[in-house]
């Protein structure tokens, strides 16, 4: 196996304490979770430094224990009816032109959290009519009546992550299958308004092969997924899924070329790319906003 102990030079980020402190101070008063902090995102300094964040609703604890993820698995909290308003107010306070809302998995709830997504979208739009909204959702166990609810709220971007190739999905994800996630994306693409872009993302460095990645791209293009993000997996701790490889930059570039040739509207492929990283710029690139 390749050396995975030494971090490559491209895994380098700049940290401006003053700007990050200012953002933390703003967020502290809002009683909201960000996936930036909960997942210990390597881009936190960059995003907080430039005044953006991605909200993680219905958390901080998740009902699933995916082996790649740093979000804690544990006892869930009751749904907070004021959370939608607080997310909307935070969007306003931060002056976000594009907001990303994700969540923990809530398999404990009868609606798996779909209603809270809808309420958050509605509140953001009520207070921020010019802000574009991106949701990054769980698989809702593939239940189409729940997907219908979220689709009806008309997010600008509907993201659901495949996370990895077919063969590695059972090893990396918990209670999620490759086919359920594909079905979610297919259903959303087929039933959402044409104004909603459908997006997914994967991690590299888990042991996937080129043919498997290309097959995944083909599976996504067959159902007309619009955006694809590809980034490097960084193992959160020794307990998590073992990193197999720091994928060389050349392979990210090769995947970008192939994915664009296969017809995605937008592809972000680089080690530090995460689902919501530079999401605003992504939407602007295809939407002319």
């Amino acid at each position: 196996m390749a050396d995975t102990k030494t971090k490559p030079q491209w895994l380098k980020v700049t940290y401006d304490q003053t700007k990050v402190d200012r953002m933390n101070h703003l967020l502290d008063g809002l009683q909201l979770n960000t996936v930036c902090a909960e997942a210990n995102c390597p881009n936190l300094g960059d995003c907080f430094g430039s005044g953006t964040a991605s909200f993680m609703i219905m958390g901080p604890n998740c009902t699933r224990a995916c082996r790649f993820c740093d979000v804690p698995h544990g006892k869930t909290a009751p749904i907070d009816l004021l959370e939608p308003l607080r997310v909307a107010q935070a969007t306003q306070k931060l002056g976000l032109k594009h907001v990303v809302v994700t969540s923990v998995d809530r398999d404990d709830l009868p609606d798996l959290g779909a209603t809270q997504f809808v309420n958050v979208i509605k509140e953001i739009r009520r207070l921020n009519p010019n802000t574009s909204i991106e949701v990054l959702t769980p698989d809702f166990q593939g239940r189409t009546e729940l997907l219908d609810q979220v689709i009806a709220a008309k997010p600008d971007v509907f993201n659901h992550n495949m996370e990895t190739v077919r063969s590695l999905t059972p090893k990396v994800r918990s209670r999620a299958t490759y086919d359920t996630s594909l079905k979610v994306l297919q259903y959303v693409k087929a039933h959402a308004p044409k104004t909603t872009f459908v997006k997914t993302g994967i991690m590299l460095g888990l042991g996937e092969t080129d043919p498997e990645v290309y097959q995944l791209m083909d599976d996504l293009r067959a159902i007309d997924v619009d955006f694809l993000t590809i980034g490097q997996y960084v193992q959160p701790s020794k307990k998590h899924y073992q990193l197999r490889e720091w994928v060389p930059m050349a392979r990210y570039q090769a995947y970008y070329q192939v994915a664009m040739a296969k017809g995605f509207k937008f592809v972000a492929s680089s080690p530090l790319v995460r689902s919501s990283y530079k999401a605003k710029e992504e939407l602007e690139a295809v939407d002319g906003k």
Partner: protein
Amino acid sequence: MLKEVHMPKLSPKSDEYFFGSWLKEPGDTVKTGDILFEVETDKVISEVQSQEDGVLKEQKVAEGDSTKVGDLVATIEVN
């Protein structure tokens, strides 16, 4: 006036980092925004910027040390 530089909290989930390398030596002029040093956290290598204009007076941490959030890392002579 002498200003102290302390290790910032670079990762939401850990407070102890591996000190990578210095990019400024004692006697060097530093400006706000200049990279002072690199630290390896659990997920990334962070380049930490100076928050002051002045001259780096003293390095209090050596490359390869384990450092904690709040540790005194350096002093900067500020005009």
